[in-house]
């Protein structure tokens, strides 16, 4: 372990949206980083983490990434949560030739979104310094269709994709939902990309009604989904299934729907029932979640596991390479084979198309449904694990009343 031999601290830079509209994603950052530092210190390792806030603003994200590299001279940049933060940071690291590990954004918006011409796959280039671990659209599609198969439907799907990083990727005619759904025998009714913070979804509702859609899917921000869902009810549109990304990721968002959140379904990246352990602390997923709730008094959320895993990977990489030698660090990242709290992470190209094989590592994904608890509040129950059987299912898919 060369760095420690020298006695100098290993400097990690970390960027996440701690304030602004995406702040919920970074809610656990302080808890995770405190835990990480305490743990590594106990193990005799000398880490320093420089934390920067992207303020949910892509301009700011690029600026702070530059600051980390130029002012703080960090050895590795870590970045998490939504393309609005991960992409500018990764782009900056790539230009500055500084190793970057990124997570918590589906890999297509991350990878394709950083290409000079996203519309032309033949022009896409792999990155030399930026690496990303998370799942991809193919996973969420598989999870959703698996869930849908559990119920009897007419296979007519309504799509709600906004014109943002996630929405464009999900709705993409080549790499998004449309081709896969078609293959699976589903018909997709996609009225088009709407802008975020839209106040009226009657156009979509009319389209879904006339297309007789029994399934609704999409990747929406919470206010938009609430607007849509209410308006749908008011207009008498009642699908059997609604599988929505992003909007119902956090329990608070589901609770904001009142009783109408029951049996909404979503992808599950991580939960306390995931059977994985931290390579740093040995804690189980359940223990990590409980620790967070205890320390902050807030319910667990999915990004916690990924924030933790990000630091696991960083710790692992610095064990295997001199942190001051960026080429060595990059090589070490590429060679990672680590079992983390979100599952195994390895940039081995498994289940990734060749163009992205170098930079993308995939983590398991399952499907879940929000169930109204007796005393109020919601539970997220894993209802489909065919994509990752190691993760236990807690129930079966149910239709919305």
């Amino acid at each position, binding site marked *: 372990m060369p760095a420690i031999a020298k006695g100098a601290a290993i400097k990690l830079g970390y960027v996440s949206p*701690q304030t602004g509209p995406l702040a919920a994603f970074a809610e656990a950052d302080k808890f995770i980083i405190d835990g990480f530092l305490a743990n590594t210190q106990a193990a005799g390792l000398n880490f320093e983490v420089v934390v920067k806030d992207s303020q949910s603003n892509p301009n700011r994200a690029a600026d702070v990434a530059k600051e980390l590299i*130029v002012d703080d001279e960090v050895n590795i940049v870590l970045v998490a949560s939504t393309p609005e933060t991960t992409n500018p940071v990764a*782009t900056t690291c790539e230009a*500055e030739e500084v190793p970057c590990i990124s997570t918590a954004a589906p890999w297509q918006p991350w990878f394709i979104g950083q290409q000079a*011409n996203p519309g032309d796959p033949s022009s896409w280039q792999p990155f030399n310094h930026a690496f990303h671990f998370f799942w991809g659209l193919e996973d969420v599609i598989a999870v959703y269709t698996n869930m849908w198969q559990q119920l009897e439907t007419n296979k007519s799907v309504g799509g709600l994709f906004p014109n*943002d990083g996630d*929405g464009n990727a999900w709705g993409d005619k080549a790499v998004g939902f449309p081709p896969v759904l078609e293959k699976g025998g589903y018909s997709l009714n996609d009225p088009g990309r709407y802008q975020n913070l839209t106040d009226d979804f009657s156009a979509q509702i009319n389209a879904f009604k006339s297309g007789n859609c029994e399934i609704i899917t999409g990747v929406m921000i919470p206010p938009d989904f609430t607007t849509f869902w209410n308006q749908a009810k008011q207009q008498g549109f009642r699908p059997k299934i609604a599988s929505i990304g992003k909007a119902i990721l956090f329990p608070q968002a589901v609770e904001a729907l009142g009783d109408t959140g029951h049996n909404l379904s979503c992808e599950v990246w991580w939960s306390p029932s995931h059977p994985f352990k931290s390579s740093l602390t040995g804690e189980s997923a359940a223990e990590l979640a409980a620790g967070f709730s205890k320390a902050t008094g807030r319910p667990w959320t999915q990004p916690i596991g990924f924030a933790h895993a990000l630091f696991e990977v960083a710790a692992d990489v610095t064990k295997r390479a001199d942190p001051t030698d960026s080429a060595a660090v990059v090589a070490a990242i590429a060679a990672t084979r680590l079992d983390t709290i979100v599952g195994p992470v390895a940039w081995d190209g498994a289940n990734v198309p060749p163009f992205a094989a170098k930079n993308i590592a995939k983590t398991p994904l399952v499907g879940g449904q929000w169930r109204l608890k007796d005393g109020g509040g919601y539970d997220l129950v894993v209802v489909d694990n065919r994509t990752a059987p190691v993760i236990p299912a807690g129930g079966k898919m149910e239709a919305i009343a």
Partner: protein
Amino acid sequence: MTHETLSSSSSQAPAAASAWTVTTRNRASSVAALLIVAVLLAGIAAPLFASRSVLQDLFFILTMLTLAQCWNLLAGYAGLVSVGQQAFVGFGAYVMAASVALGGFDPVVAILFGGLAAMLLSVPTALFVFRLHGAYFAIGTWVIAEVVRLLLAQWKALGGGTGTSLPTGVARELPGVRLVADWFGVRPAQAADMVYYWLALLLACAAIGFAYRLLRSKQGLGLAAVRDNGQAARAVGIDPNRIRFAVYLAAAFVTGLAGALIYLQKARISPDAAFSVTDWTAYVIFIVVIGGIGTIEGPIIGVVVFFILRNLFADYGSWYLLVLGLLGIAIMLFAPRGLWGLFTERTGIQLFPVRRILAGGPLTKTIKGGPHG
């Protein structure tokens, strides 16, 4: 009050003509001219001794200063309070990105394209918003910027709403980067920073120089007249729209250049970022007003204050913005003419004087008081 007929003036006798002198210069401004030259030389040489992080800060300061001077030209001199300058930042940036990423142009050429495109955009924009006045104008420009943002968010080849990154090698293709890297023996990324910095310095100096020249010209005086009273300006032969149009176009051009340069340096562009009303207009307004609107010096002071605040508080999350907001309110309430205004009121010093002072004749004896009377 002695009465005199106009006959002497009508003949324009040379003797009478030599009795009067008109100056704008004062002692402070002559000293300032020296100071400015010194600062400029130091600025040009800065990359030789400053660290990368300082260069980046300076790049930020200089580009914001350019934007601030442009906005000041519009609001402070032409009375055009635009809340839509982000349209030109974003459009310039997008055209630059398209030229580089899709057209394969040289980045410096692409910056010029960005500026020209912003100027082109400003023509129809001006035709529309010049029919509006005051707050209507402000909101009109804002809406147009939104429209441009929404339209560019449909440009799928540049990533739609997601945005896109410039090709990774672009910084290294910047003319001179390789040369600088070789000469100074630095990494290409650092050499690129140096070139960006010089471009930003050039742009900022050009913006200030242009503004100052304009203000000291007949057109500058006409602009002030139009701002003060459009109807009276027309009655003395000034065409308000023509003069404003010219300024609007020029400001759009420079703003577009600045936008293109900023995003070339950031290497990543998305509609929400490039058309951010907060980053490219609200902060710019903040800078100008804090420093002192309607002066060349104001934006310079303002940008420095803004930069210091940003660095002091940036790591305090939402507290930073909270403090920034409170400070903006406080300065506006207690020093409405900005920090520079406060300073000139006390001292009478102006680094870039534009006021035409009449002297000579009977005036030499009777006139008292500072430049503001």
